[in-house]
């Protein structure tokens, strides 16, 4: 087991390098960093431009440029953003913290309700409850997040205010403008709508996974054996059924991090929530290479990390799987 993890970790590093190189290439070709620098800073001297090229590794030779960028990135010598010369790390750190908060909240809420719904649906397949849950999940998957965001904003913020004088939930940011300091209840109120939008997708997806996984397990031989031993139905379901049904779901959850981040990006943008998504769309719109590359590295690394977690957890949870 330990050796397997080590081997996978050793593989992760070359993968990370290759993928970041591809991202570097794509950004170089797609956003033309030097041109966008000149566009944002029209009066930059030639020396300034050259310095920008050197620090960011924007050599005309892609491989050489990438190696320069990599060296500067690893040694912590990060270039400031092209607009306003802001430090990149503090901005990235704040964005990560905010997204982690929203993402965790949505994932916990989503997986919790999704699993419950899935179990209820699987207990009596074909029943009224099953049909209802299945259909709702299907509708939930079919609605893209920006649609649900718009409709929720319209209902709970704008029209609520019209009908009851005060909007139920605010629709943008983490705090009202001008607020300083930490205020948990206020923050939660601001997070309710974005969390719901992301959670809808997660609930819909996971109730379907859980339902089919549990159905598989319920029809298996060891469930019959457990029942025939005279264990109570509840115990059979929890100890034998749920535990086994959760194995594939956990793996999918870890593999799914990309799509959750995708939902977060869209949601954050609509609710002006200052997280990774807003950060990305802003810097992408401006072609801000120094801001974009570290963001990409964070995303690539977390996707690879969660892939690794998926593989390991699968092997760890299910002793039937041999790694060597």
């Amino acid at each position, binding site marked *: 087991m330990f050796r397997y993890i080590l081997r996978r970790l050793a593989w992760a590093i070359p993968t990370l390098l290759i*993928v970041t190189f591809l*991202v570097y290439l*794509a*950004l170089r*070709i*797609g*956003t*033309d960093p030097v041109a966008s620098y000149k566009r944002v800073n029209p009066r930059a001297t030639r020396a300034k431009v050259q310095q920008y090229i050197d620090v960011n590794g924007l050599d005309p030779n892609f491989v050489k440029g990438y190696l320069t960028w990599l060296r500067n990135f690893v040694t912590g010598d990060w270039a400031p953003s092209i607009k306003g010369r802001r430090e990149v790390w503090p901005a990235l750190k704040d964005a990560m913290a905010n997204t982690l908060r929203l993402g965790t909240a949505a994932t916990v809420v989503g997986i919790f309700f999704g699993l419950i719904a899935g179990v209820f649906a699987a207990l009596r*397949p*074909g029943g009224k409850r099953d049909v209802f849950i299945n*259909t709702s999940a*299907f*509708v939930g*998957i*079919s*609605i*893209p997040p*920006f*649609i649900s965001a*718009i*409709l929720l*904003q*319209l209902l709970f913020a*704008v*029209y609520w205010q*019209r009908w009851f004088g005060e909007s139920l939930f605010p*629709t943008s940011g983490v705090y009202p403008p001008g607020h300083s300091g930490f205020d948990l209840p206020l923050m939660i109120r601001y997070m309710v709508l974005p969390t719901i939008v992301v959670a809808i997708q997660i609930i819909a997806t996971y109730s379907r996974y859980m339902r089919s996984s549990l*159905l598989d397990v319920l029809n298996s031989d060891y469930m019959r054996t457990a029942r025939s031993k005279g264990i109570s139905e509840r115990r059979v379901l929890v100890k034998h059924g749920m535990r086994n049904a959760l194995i594939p779901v956990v793996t999918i959850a870890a*593999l799914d991090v*990309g*799509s959750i*981040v*995708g939902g977060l*990006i*869209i949601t954050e*943008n*609509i609710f002006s929530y200052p997280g990774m998504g807003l950060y*990305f*769309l802003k810097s*992408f719109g401006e072609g801000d290479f120094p801001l974009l590359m570290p963001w990409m590295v964070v*995303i*690539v690394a977390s*996707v690879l990390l969660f*892939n690794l977690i998926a593989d390991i957890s699968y092997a760890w949870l299910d002793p039937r799987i041999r790694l060597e």
Partner: protein
Amino acid sequence: MAFRRFVSHKAAVASCGVILALSLFVILAPLTARYGVNQSVQAPPNSFLSPRGNAWLGTDDIGRDLYSRLIFGIRVSLLIGLASALISVTLGSLIGAVAGFRGGKFDDVMMRVTDLFLAFPFLVTLLVVRNVLGAVPWLKPLTGEMNSVRFIIVLFGIFGWMGVARIVRGQVLSLKEREFVEAARAVGASRRYIISRHLLPNSVGPIMVALTFSVVGAIIGESTLAFFGYGPQAGDGATSLGILVGAAKGAVQTGFWWLAVFPCFALIVIALSINFIGDALRDATDPRLDRGA
């Protein structure tokens, strides 16, 4: 048999009806629309009129009829969905079939690449690929301008093949061990013959399913892009569902509900119907999937 199973799926049959009616409706746009795409319903003041007699679904910021624009928008969106799904399904089936049949290095590399692509946040990959595609000069004759409808079609065509390739590969992997393929090989059939005459025809079910889901993917993808301002531009005679939904973003805070509700509702109905059809197709063509009911 497959057909009977499909018909027994009531929601899917209803969805087929919805999509057919909608298609007919938008194809006959010159008859069904009450105004032109960029025509205002009345002389000013005409902006942000709520739904009324001469504008059934209200008007937008410069007084155009939302109902007529919705018809033209759905027309463009369905076109984008169908055209790019055809491209991506053709590409994906070929690549998936070859990868599954040949195996080895080609298969490994292809599947690695698709896994990687699919693991990333959809919007990020889409935006980056879009920019790269727009920056390559020798693709210009094929893709056209970056904000044209054609560009979007090519983009989703290129973008969407991966999911299809994976499905077809899986199907081919299980098919190629079957006796009839072995028999074909034994009588000396070439690889190309086996793929085109045995493997692909026997994968029609999964390919059809992939096609429906590609259509939805492209329609939703287009509206997502347009929502964030990277979609096709509203030209002289065109709009799209994405452009209309994107305009809804500004209408929310001011409370012009019709601008948000109707385009969003249209998108939901379309996505849901096509998804239902795809789901039923999958059930109908894959007898192993017994849904417990």
